[in-house]
Protein backbone atom coordinates (compact mmCIF):
# COMPACT_ATOMS: atom_id res chain seq x y z
CA UNK A 1 0.00 0.00 0.00
CA UNK A 2 2.86 2.27 1.01
CA UNK A 3 4.55 1.51 -2.30
CA UNK A 4 1.44 2.56 -4.16
CA UNK A 5 0.87 5.72 -2.11
CA UNK A 6 4.46 7.00 -2.05
CA UNK A 7 4.71 7.87 -5.77
CA UNK A 8 1.28 9.46 -5.55
CA UNK A 9 2.30 11.58 -2.54
CA UNK A 10 5.60 12.51 -4.21
CA UNK A 11 3.84 13.50 -7.42
CA UNK A 12 1.29 15.50 -5.42
CA UNK A 13 4.03 17.36 -3.52
CA UNK A 14 5.75 18.03 -6.84
CA UNK A 15 2.48 19.40 -8.17
CA UNK A 16 2.17 21.65 -5.10
CA UNK A 17 5.78 22.82 -5.42
CA UNK A 18 5.27 23.50 -9.11
CA UNK A 19 1.94 25.20 -8.77
CA UNK A 20 2.62 27.27 -5.64
CA UNK A 21 4.80 29.88 -7.41
CA UNK A 22 2.26 30.30 -10.15
CA UNK A 23 -0.50 30.72 -7.52
CA UNK A 24 1.62 33.38 -5.76
CA UNK A 25 2.31 35.00 -9.09
CA UNK A 26 -1.38 35.07 -9.86
CA UNK A 27 -2.14 36.66 -6.51
CA UNK A 28 0.49 39.32 -7.10
CA UNK A 29 -1.11 40.14 -10.41
CA UNK A 30 -3.78 42.81 -10.70
CA UNK A 31 -6.85 42.24 -8.55
CA UNK A 32 -10.08 44.12 -9.17
CA UNK A 33 -12.09 45.28 -6.17
CA UNK A 34 -15.52 46.87 -6.57
CA UNK A 35 -16.95 49.15 -3.89
CA UNK A 36 -20.61 50.05 -4.33
CA UNK A 37 -21.48 52.96 -2.10
CA UNK A 38 -24.31 55.23 -1.16
CA UNK A 39 -24.84 57.90 1.49
CA UNK A 40 -27.61 59.72 3.32
CA UNK A 41 -30.26 57.14 2.49
CA UNK A 42 -32.43 58.73 5.20
CA UNK A 43 -34.63 55.67 5.50
CA UNK A 44 -35.75 55.85 1.87
CA UNK A 45 -36.22 52.14 1.27
CA UNK A 46 -38.02 51.97 -2.07
CA UNK A 47 -34.87 51.43 -4.20
CA UNK A 48 -33.35 48.81 -1.91
CA UNK A 49 -34.45 45.88 -4.10
CA UNK A 50 -32.71 47.46 -7.10
CA UNK A 51 -29.57 48.01 -5.06
CA UNK A 52 -29.65 44.37 -3.94
CA UNK A 53 -30.13 43.22 -7.53
CA UNK A 54 -27.19 45.30 -8.72
CA UNK A 55 -24.93 44.06 -5.93
CA UNK A 56 -26.00 40.43 -6.49
CA UNK A 57 -25.36 40.72 -10.24
CA UNK A 58 -21.85 42.05 -9.69
CA UNK A 59 -21.09 39.41 -7.07
CA UNK A 60 -21.87 36.71 -9.66
CA UNK A 61 -19.06 37.92 -11.92
CA UNK A 62 -16.61 39.56 -9.50
CA UNK A 63 -15.12 37.90 -6.43
CA UNK A 64 -14.55 41.09 -4.46
CA UNK A 65 -17.63 43.29 -4.29
CA UNK A 66 -18.26 45.43 -1.20
CA UNK A 67 -21.20 47.66 -0.30
CA UNK A 68 -20.71 50.80 1.80
CA UNK A 69 -22.96 53.41 3.34
CA UNK A 70 -21.36 56.74 4.24
CA UNK A 71 -23.85 57.30 7.08
CA UNK A 72 -27.25 58.84 7.81
CA UNK A 73 -29.13 55.64 7.17
CA UNK A 74 -32.07 56.67 9.36
CA UNK A 75 -34.54 59.57 9.71
CA UNK A 76 -36.76 60.69 6.88
CA UNK A 77 -39.43 58.04 6.40
CA UNK A 78 -42.12 57.20 8.97
CA UNK A 79 -42.23 53.51 8.01
CA UNK A 80 -38.67 53.28 9.33
CA UNK A 81 -38.65 56.02 11.96
CA UNK A 82 -42.06 55.51 13.55
CA UNK A 83 -42.10 51.78 14.24
CA UNK A 84 -41.70 50.49 17.79
CA UNK A 85 -38.21 49.18 16.89
CA UNK A 86 -37.13 52.52 15.46
CA UNK A 87 -34.83 52.10 12.48
CA UNK A 88 -35.03 48.29 12.36
CA UNK A 89 -36.53 48.11 8.83
CA UNK A 90 -33.46 49.92 7.52
CA UNK A 91 -31.05 47.54 9.24
CA UNK A 92 -33.03 44.52 8.03
CA UNK A 93 -32.96 45.75 4.42
CA UNK A 94 -29.28 46.69 4.59
CA UNK A 95 -28.54 43.18 5.88
CA UNK A 96 -30.52 41.69 3.01
CA UNK A 97 -28.57 43.80 0.50
CA UNK A 98 -25.31 42.58 2.02
CA UNK A 99 -23.87 45.89 3.23
CA UNK A 100 -20.26 45.48 4.28
CA UNK A 101 -19.84 48.66 6.28
CA UNK A 102 -21.40 51.94 7.35
CA UNK A 103 -19.91 55.17 8.58
CA UNK A 104 -21.50 56.82 11.60
CA UNK A 105 -23.53 59.82 10.44
CA UNK A 106 -25.06 62.52 12.60
CA UNK A 107 -28.53 61.02 12.10
CA UNK A 108 -27.41 57.67 13.50
CA UNK A 109 -27.75 59.44 16.87
CA UNK A 110 -31.43 60.28 16.23
CA UNK A 111 -32.48 56.86 17.48
CA UNK A 112 -31.00 57.49 20.91
CA UNK A 113 -27.90 55.66 22.06
CA UNK A 114 -29.67 52.68 23.60
CA UNK A 115 -31.86 52.08 20.56
CA UNK A 116 -28.91 52.52 18.23
CA UNK A 117 -26.93 49.92 20.20
CA UNK A 118 -29.74 47.46 19.51
CA UNK A 119 -29.64 48.31 15.82
CA UNK A 120 -25.84 47.86 15.78
CA UNK A 121 -26.28 44.41 17.31
CA UNK A 122 -28.80 43.45 14.61
CA UNK A 123 -26.63 44.77 11.78
CA UNK A 124 -24.50 42.20 9.93
CA UNK A 125 -22.02 45.01 9.24
CA UNK A 126 -20.10 47.37 11.52
CA UNK A 127 -20.50 51.13 11.94
CA UNK A 128 -17.12 52.90 12.02
CA UNK A 129 -15.83 56.29 13.14
CA UNK A 130 -12.38 57.33 14.37
CA UNK A 131 -13.41 60.58 16.09
CA UNK A 132 -16.02 59.36 18.57
CA UNK A 133 -15.08 58.46 22.15
CA UNK A 134 -17.97 56.55 23.72
CA UNK A 135 -16.07 55.44 26.85
CA UNK A 136 -18.35 57.57 29.05
CA UNK A 137 -21.54 56.96 27.14
CA UNK A 138 -24.26 54.36 26.60
CA UNK A 139 -23.30 54.03 22.93
CA UNK A 140 -21.20 51.01 22.04
CA UNK A 141 -17.76 52.28 21.06
CA UNK A 142 -17.54 52.26 17.25
CA UNK A 143 -14.31 50.89 15.76
CA UNK A 144 -12.24 53.57 14.02
CA UNK A 145 -11.52 51.49 10.94
CA UNK A 146 -12.33 48.23 9.21
CA UNK A 147 -10.07 45.99 7.16
CA UNK A 148 -11.59 44.70 3.92
CA UNK A 149 -10.34 41.31 2.79
CA UNK A 150 -10.00 40.62 -0.92
CA UNK A 151 -8.15 37.31 -1.10
CA UNK A 152 -4.74 38.02 0.39
CA UNK A 153 -5.18 41.75 -0.03
CA UNK A 154 -6.13 43.85 2.99
CA UNK A 155 -7.72 47.29 2.46
CA UNK A 156 -8.16 49.54 5.51
CA UNK A 157 -11.20 51.85 5.61
CA UNK A 158 -11.27 54.70 8.13
CA UNK A 159 -14.58 56.22 9.34
CA UNK A 160 -15.02 59.91 10.22
CA UNK A 161 -18.13 61.83 11.37
CA UNK A 162 -18.79 65.57 10.93
CA UNK A 163 -18.87 68.08 13.76
CA UNK A 164 -20.83 71.32 13.62
CA UNK A 165 -19.82 74.73 14.92
CA UNK A 166 -20.56 73.58 18.48
CA UNK A 167 -18.08 70.69 18.17
CA UNK A 168 -20.88 68.12 18.05
CA UNK A 169 -22.50 66.23 15.18
CA UNK A 170 -25.70 67.84 13.85
CA UNK A 171 -28.06 66.18 16.29
CA UNK A 172 -29.85 67.43 19.38
CA UNK A 173 -27.28 67.59 22.22
CA UNK A 174 -29.64 65.60 24.49
CA UNK A 175 -28.92 62.54 22.32
CA UNK A 176 -25.15 62.86 22.69
CA UNK A 177 -24.79 62.45 26.45
CA UNK A 178 -21.38 61.12 27.57
CA UNK A 179 -19.93 61.15 24.06
CA UNK A 180 -16.74 63.01 23.21
CA UNK A 181 -15.84 64.08 19.71
CA UNK A 182 -12.57 65.21 18.22
CA UNK A 183 -11.87 67.00 14.95
CA UNK A 184 -12.11 64.38 12.20
CA UNK A 185 -9.26 65.63 10.03
CA UNK A 186 -6.83 65.91 12.96
CA UNK A 187 -7.84 62.49 14.27
CA UNK A 188 -7.48 60.89 10.84
CA UNK A 189 -3.81 61.90 10.78
CA UNK A 190 -3.20 59.43 13.64
CA UNK A 191 -4.09 56.60 11.26
CA UNK A 192 -1.54 57.18 8.50
CA UNK A 193 0.17 54.01 9.76
CA UNK A 194 -2.64 52.07 8.09
CA UNK A 195 -1.33 53.26 4.72
CA UNK A 196 2.23 52.32 5.69
CA UNK A 197 1.15 48.87 6.80
CA UNK A 198 -1.30 47.95 4.02
CA UNK A 199 -0.11 50.13 1.15
CA UNK A 200 -3.53 51.71 0.60
CA UNK A 201 -6.18 53.61 2.56
CA UNK A 202 -9.83 54.50 2.00
CA UNK A 203 -11.90 57.01 3.99
CA UNK A 204 -15.61 56.46 4.57
CA UNK A 205 -16.67 59.86 5.79
CA UNK A 206 -19.77 61.67 6.88
CA UNK A 207 -18.15 65.10 6.70
CA UNK A 208 -19.63 66.75 3.63
CA UNK A 209 -17.67 67.69 0.54
CA UNK A 210 -16.63 71.02 2.10
CA UNK A 211 -14.61 69.03 4.66
CA UNK A 212 -13.66 66.12 2.40
CA UNK A 213 -11.67 68.57 0.30
CA UNK A 214 -9.42 69.82 3.16
CA UNK A 215 -9.16 66.20 4.37
CA UNK A 216 -7.73 65.24 0.98
CA UNK A 217 -5.35 68.21 1.12
CA UNK A 218 -4.18 67.25 4.61
CA UNK A 219 -3.97 63.53 3.94
CA UNK A 220 -2.79 62.51 0.48
CA UNK A 221 -2.41 59.04 2.01
CA UNK A 222 -6.06 58.43 1.15
CA UNK A 223 -6.61 56.77 -2.19
CA UNK A 224 -10.35 57.36 -2.15
CA UNK A 225 -12.69 59.36 0.10
CA UNK A 226 -16.22 57.98 -0.05
CA UNK A 227 -18.27 60.79 1.44
CA UNK A 228 -21.69 61.80 2.70
CA UNK A 229 -23.57 64.47 4.67
CA UNK A 230 -23.71 67.29 2.09
CA UNK A 231 -26.02 65.30 -0.25
CA UNK A 232 -23.75 66.10 -3.17
CA UNK A 233 -24.37 64.23 -6.41
CA UNK A 234 -21.09 63.58 -8.21
CA UNK A 235 -21.36 62.27 -11.73
CA UNK A 236 -17.59 62.54 -11.98
CA UNK A 237 -15.24 62.25 -9.01
CA UNK A 238 -13.38 65.23 -7.57
CA UNK A 239 -9.61 64.83 -7.62
CA UNK A 240 -7.87 66.76 -4.84
CA UNK A 241 -4.18 66.30 -4.06
CA UNK A 242 -4.29 62.99 -5.90
CA UNK A 243 -7.22 61.77 -3.76
CA UNK A 244 -10.46 60.70 -5.42
CA UNK A 245 -13.57 62.09 -3.66
CA UNK A 246 -17.01 60.65 -4.43
CA UNK A 247 -20.57 61.06 -3.14
CA UNK A 248 -23.97 59.99 -4.49
CA UNK A 249 -26.59 62.57 -3.40
CA UNK A 250 -29.25 61.33 -0.99
CA UNK A 251 -32.36 59.22 -0.56
CA UNK A 252 -30.92 56.15 -2.34
CA UNK A 253 -31.55 57.65 -5.75
CA UNK A 254 -28.04 56.71 -6.89
CA UNK A 255 -25.29 54.28 -6.10
CA UNK A 256 -21.61 54.89 -6.75
CA UNK A 257 -19.33 52.21 -8.15
CA UNK A 258 -15.63 52.55 -7.39
CA UNK A 259 -13.48 49.99 -9.18
CA UNK A 260 -9.96 49.61 -7.83
CA UNK A 261 -7.19 47.69 -9.46
CA UNK A 262 -4.65 46.53 -6.92
CA UNK A 263 -1.20 45.24 -7.71
CA UNK A 264 1.75 44.64 -5.38
CA UNK A 265 -0.04 46.22 -2.39
CA UNK A 266 -0.82 49.37 -4.35
CA UNK A 267 -3.92 50.76 -5.98
CA UNK A 268 -2.86 51.19 -9.59
CA UNK A 269 -6.14 52.33 -11.04
CA UNK A 270 -9.34 53.97 -9.72
CA UNK A 271 -12.51 54.19 -11.76
CA UNK A 272 -15.81 55.73 -10.69
CA UNK A 273 -19.32 55.53 -12.06
CA UNK A 274 -22.54 57.03 -10.68
CA UNK A 275 -25.45 54.68 -11.32
CA UNK A 276 -28.98 56.14 -11.01
CA UNK A 277 -31.07 53.36 -9.47
CA UNK A 278 -33.98 54.41 -11.69
CA UNK A 279 -31.95 52.94 -14.56
CA UNK A 280 -31.98 49.48 -12.96
CA UNK A 281 -35.10 47.68 -14.16
CA UNK A 282 -34.95 44.58 -11.99
CA UNK A 283 -35.15 44.17 -8.25
CA UNK A 284 -34.30 41.39 -5.86
CA UNK A 285 -37.76 39.82 -5.22
CA UNK A 286 -37.05 38.86 -1.61
CA UNK A 287 -35.91 42.36 -0.75
CA UNK A 288 -38.90 43.82 -2.63
CA UNK A 289 -41.26 41.64 -0.57
CA UNK A 290 -39.68 42.99 2.61
CA UNK A 291 -40.01 46.58 1.37
CA UNK A 292 -43.68 46.02 0.53
CA UNK A 293 -44.24 44.61 4.00
CA UNK A 294 -42.62 47.65 5.64
CA UNK A 295 -44.46 50.12 3.42
CA UNK A 296 -47.75 48.46 4.31
CA UNK A 297 -46.96 49.01 7.95
CA UNK A 298 -49.94 49.31 10.21
CA UNK A 299 -47.82 51.40 12.56
CA UNK A 300 -49.03 54.54 10.82
CA UNK A 301 -52.52 53.64 11.96
CA UNK A 302 -51.27 53.29 15.52
CA UNK A 303 -53.09 55.52 18.00
CA UNK A 304 -50.88 58.06 19.75
CA UNK A 305 -53.45 59.97 21.80
CA UNK A 306 -57.15 60.67 22.30
CA UNK A 307 -58.72 63.95 21.22
CA UNK A 308 -61.36 64.71 23.83
CA UNK A 309 -63.16 67.06 21.45
CA UNK A 310 -63.02 68.08 17.79
CA UNK A 311 -59.97 70.24 17.08
CA UNK A 312 -61.38 72.65 14.53
CA UNK A 313 -59.59 75.43 12.71
CA UNK A 314 -56.20 77.07 12.71
CA UNK A 315 -56.33 78.32 16.28
CA UNK A 316 -56.89 74.90 17.82
CA UNK A 317 -54.54 73.00 15.47
CA UNK A 318 -51.87 75.72 15.50
CA UNK A 319 -52.15 75.86 19.28
CA UNK A 320 -51.60 72.10 19.43
CA UNK A 321 -48.54 72.33 17.18
CA UNK A 322 -46.94 75.19 19.12
CA UNK A 323 -47.77 73.74 22.53
CA UNK A 324 -45.82 70.68 21.43
CA UNK A 325 -42.74 72.85 20.83
CA UNK A 326 -42.93 74.81 24.11
CA UNK A 327 -43.58 71.61 26.04
CA UNK A 328 -41.10 69.23 24.41
CA UNK A 329 -38.27 71.68 23.75
CA UNK A 330 -38.80 73.90 26.81
CA UNK A 331 -38.98 77.17 24.91
CA UNK A 332 -40.69 80.23 26.37
CA UNK A 333 -42.92 80.52 23.34
CA UNK A 334 -43.48 79.14 19.86
CA UNK A 335 -45.20 80.24 16.67
CA UNK A 336 -46.79 78.28 13.81
CA UNK A 337 -47.69 79.86 10.47
CA UNK A 338 -51.26 79.21 9.32
CA UNK A 339 -50.03 78.17 5.85
CA UNK A 340 -48.23 75.22 7.46
CA UNK A 341 -51.45 73.83 9.00
CA UNK A 342 -52.56 71.48 6.25
CA UNK A 343 -55.85 70.05 7.54
CA UNK A 344 -58.87 71.85 8.93
CA UNK A 345 -59.70 69.54 11.84
CA UNK A 346 -58.84 66.52 13.91
CA UNK A 347 -62.09 64.85 14.95
CA UNK A 348 -62.79 63.74 18.51
CA UNK A 349 -61.42 60.26 19.20
CA UNK A 350 -58.23 58.53 18.21
CA UNK A 351 -55.26 60.58 16.95
CA UNK A 352 -52.97 58.45 14.77
CA UNK A 353 -49.48 58.90 13.37
CA UNK A 354 -50.91 59.49 9.92
CA UNK A 355 -53.04 62.38 11.28
CA UNK A 356 -49.84 64.14 12.34
CA UNK A 357 -48.27 63.69 8.91
CA UNK A 358 -51.43 64.99 7.24
CA UNK A 359 -51.42 68.02 9.54
CA UNK A 360 -47.69 68.68 9.15
CA UNK A 361 -46.28 66.95 6.05
CA UNK A 362 -43.33 69.22 5.22
CA UNK A 363 -40.47 67.77 7.24
CA UNK A 364 -39.61 71.19 8.70
CA UNK A 365 -37.34 71.20 11.72
CA UNK A 366 -37.73 73.22 14.92
CA UNK A 367 -35.45 76.26 15.08
CA UNK A 368 -34.93 78.12 18.35
CA UNK A 369 -34.02 81.83 18.53
CA UNK A 370 -33.11 83.95 21.53
CA UNK A 371 -35.16 87.12 21.06
CA UNK A 372 -36.15 90.20 23.02
CA UNK A 373 -39.63 91.70 23.06
CA UNK A 374 -39.01 94.13 20.18
CA UNK A 375 -37.74 91.28 17.98
CA UNK A 376 -40.75 89.12 18.80
CA UNK A 377 -43.02 92.05 17.95
CA UNK A 378 -41.24 92.45 14.60
CA UNK A 379 -41.78 88.73 13.84
CA UNK A 380 -45.50 88.93 14.60
CA UNK A 381 -45.96 92.29 12.85
CA UNK A 382 -44.16 91.30 9.64
CA UNK A 383 -46.00 87.98 9.53
CA UNK A 384 -49.33 89.84 9.93
CA UNK A 385 -48.48 92.22 7.09
CA UNK A 386 -47.94 89.31 4.65
CA UNK A 387 -51.74 88.97 4.33
CA UNK A 388 -53.14 91.70 6.59
CA UNK A 389 -54.36 89.00 8.97
CA UNK A 390 -53.11 86.89 11.82
CA UNK A 391 -50.56 84.46 10.43
CA UNK A 392 -48.76 83.15 13.50
CA UNK A 393 -50.53 80.99 16.09
CA UNK A 394 -48.64 81.23 19.37
CA UNK A 395 -47.97 79.14 22.44
CA UNK A 396 -46.68 80.62 25.68
CA UNK A 397 -48.04 84.08 24.89
CA UNK A 398 -51.18 85.85 23.73
CA UNK A 399 -50.98 88.83 21.44
CA UNK A 400 -53.03 91.62 19.93
CA UNK A 401 -52.14 93.24 16.63
CA UNK A 402 -53.19 96.88 16.39
CA UNK A 403 -53.64 97.90 12.77
CA UNK A 404 -53.34 101.21 10.96
CA UNK A 405 -55.74 102.62 8.38
CA UNK A 406 -54.27 100.41 5.61
CA UNK A 407 -54.85 97.34 7.73
CA UNK A 408 -51.15 96.85 8.34
CA UNK A 409 -49.65 96.16 11.72
CA UNK A 410 -48.99 99.34 13.70
CA UNK A 411 -48.07 97.71 17.00
CA UNK A 412 -48.17 94.37 18.80
CA UNK A 413 -49.21 93.95 22.45
CA UNK A 414 -47.96 90.76 24.06
CA UNK A 415 -48.70 89.11 27.38
CA UNK A 416 -47.82 85.80 28.93
CA UNK A 417 -50.51 83.16 29.43
CA UNK A 418 -51.40 84.66 32.82
CA UNK A 419 -51.99 88.05 31.20
CA UNK A 420 -48.80 89.72 32.43
CA UNK A 421 -46.95 91.94 29.94
CA UNK A 422 -43.60 90.68 28.68
CA UNK A 423 -40.38 92.18 30.03
CA UNK A 424 -38.77 94.43 27.34
CA UNK A 425 -35.32 93.77 28.83
CA UNK A 426 -35.58 90.00 28.91
CA UNK A 427 -34.35 87.51 26.32
CA UNK A 428 -36.87 84.78 25.47
CA UNK A 429 -36.41 81.46 23.71
CA UNK A 430 -38.69 81.28 20.69
CA UNK A 431 -39.37 78.10 18.70
CA UNK A 432 -40.52 78.27 15.08
CA UNK A 433 -40.39 75.89 12.13
CA UNK A 434 -37.55 76.10 9.63
CA UNK A 435 -39.86 77.58 6.96
CA UNK A 436 -40.58 80.63 9.17
CA UNK A 437 -36.94 80.83 10.26
CA UNK A 438 -35.69 80.92 6.67
CA UNK A 439 -38.31 82.83 4.74
CA UNK A 440 -39.95 85.32 7.14
CA UNK A 441 -38.41 88.76 7.51
CA UNK A 442 -37.96 89.86 11.12
CA UNK A 443 -35.35 91.50 13.31
CA UNK A 444 -33.17 89.07 15.20
CA UNK A 445 -29.59 89.30 16.41
CA UNK A 446 -29.43 85.56 17.09
CA UNK A 447 -29.23 83.59 13.83
CA UNK A 448 -31.05 80.68 15.50
CA UNK A 449 -30.18 77.02 15.99
CA UNK A 450 -31.80 73.93 14.55
CA UNK A 451 -32.94 71.40 17.13
CA UNK A 452 -32.45 68.68 14.49
CA UNK A 453 -35.95 67.45 15.18
CA UNK A 454 -38.91 67.85 12.88
CA UNK A 455 -42.02 69.68 14.02
CA UNK A 456 -44.02 66.52 13.22
CA UNK A 457 -41.82 64.37 15.44
CA UNK A 458 -42.10 66.98 18.21
CA UNK A 459 -45.89 66.82 17.95
CA UNK A 460 -45.88 63.02 18.01
CA UNK A 461 -43.75 63.06 21.17
CA UNK A 462 -46.09 65.62 22.74
CA UNK A 463 -49.23 63.63 21.93
CA UNK A 464 -47.62 60.45 23.26
CA UNK A 465 -46.75 62.26 26.49
CA UNK A 466 -50.13 63.93 27.01
CA UNK A 467 -52.29 60.97 25.85
CA UNK A 468 -55.60 62.84 26.35
CA UNK A 469 -55.87 66.29 24.81
CA UNK A 470 -58.59 68.93 24.72
CA UNK A 471 -58.51 72.01 22.49
CA UNK A 472 -61.63 74.11 22.39
CA UNK A 473 -62.12 77.84 22.32
CA UNK A 474 -58.41 78.44 21.71
CA UNK A 475 -58.09 82.18 21.00
CA UNK A 476 -54.58 83.43 21.60
CA UNK A 477 -54.62 86.28 19.11
CA UNK A 478 -56.79 89.32 18.50
CA UNK A 479 -56.76 92.16 16.01
CA UNK A 480 -57.70 95.69 17.05
CA UNK A 481 -58.37 98.29 14.37
CA UNK A 482 -56.38 101.38 15.21
CA UNK A 483 -56.83 104.89 13.93
Amino acid at each position, binding site marked *: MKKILLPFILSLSFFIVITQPSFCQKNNGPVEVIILHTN*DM*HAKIDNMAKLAYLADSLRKTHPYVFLFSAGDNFTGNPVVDMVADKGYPMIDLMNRCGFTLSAMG*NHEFDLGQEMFNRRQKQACFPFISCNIDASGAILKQPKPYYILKAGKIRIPVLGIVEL*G*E*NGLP*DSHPSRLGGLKFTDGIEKAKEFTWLKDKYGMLIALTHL*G*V*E*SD*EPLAKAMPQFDVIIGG*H*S*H*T*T*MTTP*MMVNGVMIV*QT*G*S*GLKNVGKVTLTIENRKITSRKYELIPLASIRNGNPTVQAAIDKYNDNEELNRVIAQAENDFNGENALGGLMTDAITSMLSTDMAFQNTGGIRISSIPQGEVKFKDVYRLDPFGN*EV*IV*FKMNLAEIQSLIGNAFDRGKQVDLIPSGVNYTVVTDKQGLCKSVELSDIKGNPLDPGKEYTVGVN*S*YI*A*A*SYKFNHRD*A*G*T*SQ*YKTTAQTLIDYLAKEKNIRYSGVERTTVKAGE
Partner: protein
Amino acid sequence: MRIFINRKEITIFAGARVLDAVRAYSVRSAKRLLNGSLSVFDRFGNPTEPDGRLTDGQILSIRKTK
Protein backbone atom coordinates in the same frame (compact mmCIF):
# COMPACT_ATOMS: atom_id res chain seq x y z
CA MET B 1 -23.99 80.98 9.97
CA ARG B 2 -23.09 82.75 6.73
CA ILE B 3 -23.81 81.22 3.35
CA PHE B 4 -23.11 82.77 -0.05
CA ILE B 5 -25.63 82.22 -2.83
CA ASN B 6 -24.82 83.67 -6.24
CA ARG B 7 -22.33 85.92 -4.40
CA LYS B 8 -25.01 87.28 -2.04
CA GLU B 9 -24.34 86.77 1.67
CA ILE B 10 -27.15 85.08 3.61
CA THR B 11 -27.31 84.73 7.39
CA ILE B 12 -29.14 81.57 8.35
CA PHE B 13 -29.61 79.45 11.48
CA ALA B 14 -27.06 76.84 12.51
CA GLY B 15 -27.94 73.45 11.09
CA ALA B 16 -29.68 74.88 8.01
CA ARG B 17 -30.16 72.85 4.85
CA VAL B 18 -29.70 73.98 1.25
CA LEU B 19 -33.45 74.64 0.86
CA ASP B 20 -33.48 76.86 3.98
CA ALA B 21 -30.67 79.00 2.61
CA VAL B 22 -32.35 79.28 -0.79
CA ARG B 23 -35.60 80.31 0.97
CA ALA B 24 -33.67 83.01 2.81
CA TYR B 25 -32.18 84.10 -0.52
CA SER B 26 -35.49 84.14 -2.40
CA VAL B 27 -38.77 82.36 -1.66
CA ARG B 28 -39.49 82.30 -5.40
CA SER B 29 -36.19 80.55 -6.10
CA ALA B 30 -36.97 78.03 -3.36
CA LYS B 31 -40.27 77.16 -5.07
CA ARG B 32 -38.47 76.75 -8.40
CA LEU B 33 -35.86 74.57 -6.70
CA LEU B 34 -38.61 72.33 -5.37
CA ASN B 35 -40.33 72.03 -8.75
CA GLY B 36 -37.02 71.18 -10.38
CA SER B 37 -36.61 74.21 -12.64
CA LEU B 38 -33.61 75.43 -10.62
CA SER B 39 -30.64 73.45 -9.31
CA VAL B 40 -28.08 74.26 -6.63
CA PHE B 41 -24.35 73.68 -7.06
CA ASP B 42 -21.51 73.81 -4.54
CA ARG B 43 -18.28 75.75 -5.13
CA PHE B 44 -16.79 72.75 -6.92
CA GLY B 45 -19.66 72.69 -9.40
CA ASN B 46 -21.28 69.57 -7.95
CA PRO B 47 -25.10 69.48 -7.79
CA THR B 48 -26.37 69.49 -4.21
CA GLU B 49 -29.73 68.11 -3.05
CA PRO B 50 -32.14 70.61 -1.36
CA ASP B 51 -32.01 68.60 1.88
CA GLY B 52 -28.20 68.69 2.16
CA ARG B 53 -26.82 70.23 5.36
CA LEU B 54 -24.73 73.37 5.07
CA THR B 55 -21.55 74.43 6.79
CA ASP B 56 -20.58 77.97 7.77
CA GLY B 57 -19.11 79.94 4.89
CA GLN B 58 -20.33 77.58 2.20
CA ILE B 59 -20.58 78.98 -1.32
CA LEU B 60 -23.51 77.94 -3.50
CA SER B 61 -24.81 78.94 -6.87
CA ILE B 62 -28.31 78.57 -8.27
CA ARG B 63 -28.76 77.88 -11.94
CA LYS B 64 -31.55 76.87 -14.27
CA THR B 65 -31.83 73.11 -14.55
CA LYS B 66 -30.66 71.92 -17.94
